[in-house]
């Protein structure tokens, strides 16, 4: 396991073949579709994607058209992991061993309504790759808050800013002791591609939590999507890591940010987004404290 035979992707080595065709119904600047486009280049044509109710359902546009050159099975909101488990069972019984089964779900269908079926699949060790693209709210229905919405963020159901903290789904998945848990960010597609590749190489349940900035929901201009994701990582608000074989490993720019002073000021991440316009200094101080806590926890898991 580990790095044997693991050839990392580079920008040049990613295929030019497009598996998620242009002219889909995603918002301009959507990070989730950006990541799916790259993800399918990694996964290839022998891939089945399970999509529960979320932005990615609607992004597919109207029947009889779809942007996807790989099979997509649309399922109910709570059901992506269970549906994926059923698909894997059918492939197994038919002796088909070389097809990726990938759940591509939003934070709602993962952290909230979908957590039960995800937990069940993880506990059973169903052979799937679960990617949660986290735009931190129920964006498909117009930006209502989810368990994954961060503290202080304004949504249509937390108008003055969410008071609860963000549910730690990667931590929950680590507690299930599945073979692979990783965080990623759409602004670092090669890092994401390599994590997907590693997930493909592992049997059992793999989980990737992909921070996915959303222009209309986070209230920033569409062209800033990559910059917003970069600021999330560079301020330390989002930590890039992989967790397998019992320990965490920081990846990408997060490697250099274990030391607090190396991180950009959190305000740079918050000020570019309209959803944090209500965050006063005490709230920001609380956010900073939580970020430090999270860094401590992850660094603790990085021990040799």
């Amino acid at each position, binding site marked *: 396991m580990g790095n044997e035979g693991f050839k990392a992707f580079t*920008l*040049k080595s*990613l295929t*030019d073949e*497009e598996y*998620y*065709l*242009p*002219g*889909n*119904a*995603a918002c*301009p*600047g*959507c*990070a989730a*579709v*950006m990541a799916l*486009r*790259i993800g399918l280049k990694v996964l290839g044509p022998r891939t089945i994607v399970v999509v529960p109710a979320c932005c990615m359902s609607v*992004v*597919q*546009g*109207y*029947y*009889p*058209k*779809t*942007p*996807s*050159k790989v099979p997509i099975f649309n399922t109910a909101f709570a059901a992506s992991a269970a549906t994926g488990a059923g698909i894997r069972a059918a492939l197994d019984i038919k002796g088909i061993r070389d097809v990726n089964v990938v759940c591509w779900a939003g934070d709602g269908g993962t952290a909230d309504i979908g957590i039960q079926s995800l937990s069940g699949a993880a506990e059973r060790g169903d052979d799937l790759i679960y990617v949660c693209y986290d735009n931190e709210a129920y964006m498909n229905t117009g930006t209502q808050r989810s368990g994954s919405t961060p503290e202080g963020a304004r949504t249509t159901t937390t108008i003055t800013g969410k008071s609860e903290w963000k549910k730690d789904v990667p931590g929950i998945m680590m507690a299930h002791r599945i073979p692979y848990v990783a965080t990623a960010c759409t602004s670092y*597609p*090669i890092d994401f591609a390599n994590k997907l590749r590693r997930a493909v190489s592992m049997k059992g349940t793999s989980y990737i939590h992909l921070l996915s900035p959303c*222009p209309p929901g986070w209230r920033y*201009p*569409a*062209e*800033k*999507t*990559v*910059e917003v994701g970069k600021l999330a990582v560079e301020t330390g608000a989002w930590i890039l890591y992989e967790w397998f074989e019992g320990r965490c490993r920081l990846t990408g720019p997060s490697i250099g940010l274990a030391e607090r002073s190396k991180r950009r000021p959190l305000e740079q991440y918050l000020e570019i987004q309209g959803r944090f316009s209500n965050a006063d200094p005490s709230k920001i101080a609380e956010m900073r404290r939580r970020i430090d806590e999270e860094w401590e926890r992850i660094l603790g898991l990085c021990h040799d």
Partner: protein
Amino acid sequence: MVDAPLSKATEGAGGLTGMWRIKRPEVDSSRCTKCHLCWLFCPEGVVRRGSKGEVWVVYEFCKGCGICAEVCTPRAISMVREV
């Protein structure tokens, strides 16, 4: 396959999304360093790269989000108002 409502892959599944935009990206090939960050980050996949590393935009579906211009390090892409 079975006679069921199954959708087939096609460009423009969301319509003629090129009509959505207000600005269009213009590539100045003299400044382009062929780093392909625009190709990597285009959410739509309408920035294409050729065998010699050159890039171009498929305007039919470009939504004008402006990400390509933002990530272009040599500032070879500019967003030009169309509407």
